């Protein structure tokens, strides 16, 4: 996907693009680096992938996991092929310090080990997906009119936007279950979800209404 001179730079670029890395990305890093690298760079690589692969915030991941579990219609079952892939992922996750304590890490391990293939792919999309920082920076520059948008600001706004998308999609799913509909989410669900979020006050409202679009 990315042109890179050496695996470490590839790791850096990947880190820059999507802070919430998935176990699969870490897997690629791990397999690339040991092969003929210094102990020094290999060690630093581990540290970096360790720093980056912090498991996502448990308080937000728990409700999301619940929703993905609800979405998986098939019962939980494990194929032999998936087991191998999941074991790899567990190993990667095991190396990384959890944000707080090993108890949470153990809980994550226990949950992840029981994922079906569909759940695992959904979880991977959840961890890996991110809004592009370059696009976000361009948008922020055009909004504020100032060129001085720092990198932390871009990262923070990307994170906020991603969580907002999550709230939208989850609320839209709730709306769908209330209306007893199924299938892909339609714009009417999103609009209803947006309306509910506005009522809850999670969307910043403009004091002056928007006139010209």
């Amino acid at each position, binding site marked *: 996907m990315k042109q890179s001179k050496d695996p470490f730079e590839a790791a850096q670029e990947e880190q820059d693009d999507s802070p919430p890395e998935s176990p699969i990305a870490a897997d690629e890093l791990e397999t690339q680096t040991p092969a003929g690298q210094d102990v020094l760079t290999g060690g630093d690589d581990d540290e970096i992938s360790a720093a980056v692969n912090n498991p996502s915030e448990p308080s937000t991941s728990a409700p999301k996991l619940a929703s993905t579990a609800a979405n998986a219609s098939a019962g939980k079952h494990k194929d032999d092929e998936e087991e191998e892939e999941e074991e790899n992922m567990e190993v990667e996750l095991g190396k990384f310090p959890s944000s707080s304590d090993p108890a949470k890490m153990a809980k994550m391990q226990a949950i992840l080990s029981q994922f079906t293939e569909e759940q695992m792919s959904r979880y991977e999309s959840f961890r890996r997906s991110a809004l592009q920082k370059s696009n976000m920076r361009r948008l922020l520059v055009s909004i504020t009119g*100032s060129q001085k948008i720092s990198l932390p600001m871009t*990262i923070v*706004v990307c994170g906020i936007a991603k969580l907002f998308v999550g709230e939208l999609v989850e609320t839209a799913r709730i709306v769908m279950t209330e209306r007893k509909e199924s299938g892909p989410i339609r714009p009417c669900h999103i609009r209803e979800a947006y309306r509910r979020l506005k009522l809850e006050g*999670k969307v910043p409202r403009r004091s002056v209404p928007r006139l010209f679009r």
Partner: protein
Amino acid sequence: MSNPSAGTSSKSKAGTSQPSETSFKRKRGVFQKDLQHMMYGFGDDSNPLPETVSLVEDIVVEYVTDLAHKAQDIGAKRGKLSVEDFLYLIRKDLPKLNRCTELLSMQEELKQARKAFEVDEEKLATLE
């Protein structure tokens, strides 16, 4: 001079307090690809409907715009815009606040790690 936003391919974004020099024409589909993966991760179908993705993109851009305007208002008191303004705006929303502090601390860790790596490389180069 109202611009009907029904599926036009590009929109010129008018500045509010000051005209933006970059004249950023907001094209459709700036975040589309990423949004598709994101929506799947959050519970949508593996192939979300394109109109849904467009709508979510519009909503997200509007959200970021409003957020940035409010942050700018707050930052104007201090003089310039900073990360703290955004953090202040989401202070009520605990998941977002925690996630942002986590992202910022991770970024610090990465910076430190990269600095350590460069220092070690120099040492290695000077040794040889």
